[in-house]
């Protein structure tokens, strides 16, 4: 019988968690060195960043809003990874999710409540099918999912741009579509806060006023629910058992009577749906529209880093998504406040991923530190 307390200690001390923590620390350290070389005080810069993330309730909310889509694209990549597939296509699946959410949010008119559900389901279904294409190509023709999903990303991007240009969808004199109807949004008290009554009420409650200045929405709750759903599917269902066994050893899975090809398609579809959910919630909660994209926005690619930092765990993705969101939101503030280059944030994030990708080095480092302690 294992002592529960011991096993938690083990998890913190020796497993991936330790590597993650050390990597984050090293990432921040490298960022500090770069700042120092560039002639800025690292302490001051990180101070500004921290203040910019936690200084006001509004800031914290912005961090969460920034983190929400990253958590979900992270979940998408992590889910595929747990089942032995590398989903580079979260980017494209995100675009499809956002596009379909906007189409259904604008062209379909439904009552409050129902409309949100219909938009969401339509978007994740479309993105799921989009992801499923890569799974199908792999199962049927042996096309590697990395190649297929990279191609599908570009197809999604140009499909998005094409659809927005269509008559009746593009808002005149803009590079974007029409906005979705209010019934399709998930903002919290979005209408009320601009009413006369709302304005007066918020004035007396300054903290809430600060909070409601942001596009506060239900996205993060959906993201956390989805994280739980991912964990549950993977660990508590026969479907998850099938997908994981195909991911770890498809030969044994095949021998055990599991349909390996079907599993690949299902897995990529679920991964696609998760990234599509990110796109849909971004439209429903924040942007309300889709715009013509000159280049990839990077939500899907950041998702790869989020999944890596979260060790491909469902809840790991929630935390690493928040970390990423914080850096993305708080980081650029050093530019306006001190003139320090905000690119430092990218260096920090890149370094964290870099160190996580070399666990052996971190283990060596930890063992050196421990040896010194003993001496």
């Amino acid at each position, binding site marked *: 019988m294992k002592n529960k307390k011991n096993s938690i200690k083990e998890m913190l001390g020796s497993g991936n968690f330790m590597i993650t923590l050390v990597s984050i620390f090293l990432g921040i350290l490298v960022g500090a060195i770069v700042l120092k070389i560039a002639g800025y005080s690292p302490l001051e810069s990180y101070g500004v960043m921290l203040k910019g993330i936690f200084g006001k309730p509004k800031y914290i909310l912005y961090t969460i809003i920034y983190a929400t889509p990253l958590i979900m694209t992270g979940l998408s990549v992590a889910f595929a990874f747990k089942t032995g597939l590398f989903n580079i296509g979260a980017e494209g699946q995100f675009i499809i999710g956002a596009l379909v959410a906007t189409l259904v949010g604008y062209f379909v008119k439904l009552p409050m409540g129902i409309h949100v559900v219909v938009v969401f389901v339509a978007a994740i279904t479309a993105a799921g099918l989009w992801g499923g294409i890569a799974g199908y190509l792999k199962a049927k023709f042996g096309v590697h999912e990395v190649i297929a999903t990279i191609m599908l990303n570009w197809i999604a991007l140009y499909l998005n741009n094409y659809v927005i240009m269509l008559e009746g969808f593009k808002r005149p004199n803009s590079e974007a579509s029409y906005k979705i109807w209010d019934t399709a949004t998930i903002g919290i008290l979005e209408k009320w806060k601009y009413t006369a009554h709302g304005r007066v009420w918020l004035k007396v409650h300054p903290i809430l006023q600060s909070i409601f200045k942001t596009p506060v929405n239900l996205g993060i709750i959906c993201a956390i629910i989805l994280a739980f759903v991912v964990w549950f599917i993977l660990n508590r269902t026969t479907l998850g058992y099938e997908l*994981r066994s195909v991911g770890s050893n498809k030969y044994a899975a095949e021998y055990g009577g599991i349909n390996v090809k079907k599993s690949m398609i299902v897995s990529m579809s679920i991964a696609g749906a998760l990234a599509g959910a990110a796109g849909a919630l971004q439209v429903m909660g924040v942007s309300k529209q889709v715009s013509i994209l000159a280049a990839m926005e990077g939500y899907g690619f950041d998702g790869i880093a989020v999944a890596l930092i979260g060790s491909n765990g469902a809840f790991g993705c929630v935390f690493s998504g928040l970390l990423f969101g914080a850096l993305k939101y708080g980081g650029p503030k050093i530019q306006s406040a001190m003139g320090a280059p905000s690119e430092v944030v990218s260096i920090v994030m890149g370094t964290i991923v870099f160190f996580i990708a070399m666990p052996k080095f971190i283990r060596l480092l930890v063992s050196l530190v421990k040896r010194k302690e003993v001496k």
Partner: protein
Amino acid sequence: MNHIKVEEKAVEMKNITKVFGNFTANEDINLTVHKGEVHALLGENGAGKTTLMNILYGLYQPTIGEIMINGKTVIMADPNIAIQNGIGMVHQHFMLVEPFTVTENIILGKETTTSFGKLDIEEAVSHVQELSEKYGLYVDPYAKIQDITVGMQQRVEILKALYRGAEILILDEPTAVLTPQEIQDLIDIIRNLTKQGKCIIIITHKLKEIKQIADYCTIIRRGKQIDTVDVSVTTEEELANKMVGREVNFIVGKEERTKGEVVLEIDNLVIKDNRGINAVDGLSLKVHAGEILGIAGIDGNGQRELIEGIIGLRKIESGKICMIQKDITGRTPKEILESKISTIPEDRQKRGLVLDFSVEENMILENYYKEPFSRKGILNKNKINYFAKELIQKFDIRPEDETLKARALSGGNQQKVIIARELTNDPELLIAAQPTRGLDVGAIEYVHKSLVEQRDKNKAVLLISLELDEVMNVADRIAVIYEGKIVGIVEAKETNENALGLMMAGGGSGNEK
């Protein structure tokens, strides 16, 4: 002074102890090997043989102890130092670059070049040929590794070590993957090498081979050195008892039985291999209830394709397979499992287990979708856990921890997990493919007993093995497979090794079927 020739000591390992965390892999082991000697290391799986050799080869550092090569103390900090000291190691799993040629593999890391760093392949080839003639290690220097047999690949590994000037050769389980003929060739090669003064340390748990080639044998059990014996004055039984620590029964005990109804019937089966050639070529076979039918044959005569065909992992070109009068030709693996066929697969790590899954997860690999393990798609963790614990007890799987990853188990215990799972399916037909490959005597005894028990419950057992001894000991009837056909079926007690060997080589006799 008398004039007894004092043999030169090539390797001396003194008081070697190696501790990993709380686990002592080697405890105070002393090993001395002289020039021109073959020294066997005998022990069960996980006894610490490979650890000891990895220490000699510089892959691990001993916690305590000293290594002397040719009388001088050497600190084996890494394999490069070991190589410089004339030590070569041939691992159980070969480390060759498949698309490279034999010569390219041998010179890898020690290439001969002309000016401007251009590879001098001709020079290398002639060097390789010189070596292979000297020791009788014949290989085609221009053949690609992916195109040559396992036995040939092993020769390449040995040549690789010799090319680097090895005087001391460590062979880790060298015969595990070889056919009987290849084993004989290897023995000849070993004799050639020792004649030239090289010394050889061979890790094995095959007693017969130790008797055949080794001069001395050191027996290790649970990390401790039990004894070092002169092989010429000891018996196989004695070696086995020392290795396992108790009396080992070599003869499989089984009562006479009359066979029952036909359970599996294969008719004129044709199956292609990966290259598109008919590996199983018009094979017909019947397996009855209450019998163990052994299939003997040299590796590569269609055994693998036959098994994969029966259990639905490989496409059947033509012919018919019936299980208890039900046609199962071309069915999915799941449907075939449900027709009460269970399999102990040939490659337990590739097919039999998901190594990164826990033992309990592996226990339900074929039944995860059935009650009580799941209901409406939701797994019942408690039931799975209870089931796994029960099987661990019943089949004596060690360590007794169902949450451990299958990867962490020894080969014998991994096999027990598979046997536990397959037998719990209560199959009408059990297919056992190479069920004792790489297992030690104790585990082999256990596997054989399980097969006989299955037969005694009036179930059918199909045993496919490359080990002729195993087929002869365990099976009731023996079918010999040659070039994808059954060339003869004989009663196990009415045949002998020579007759079977002749049939296996294609010189068929016995009742043609």
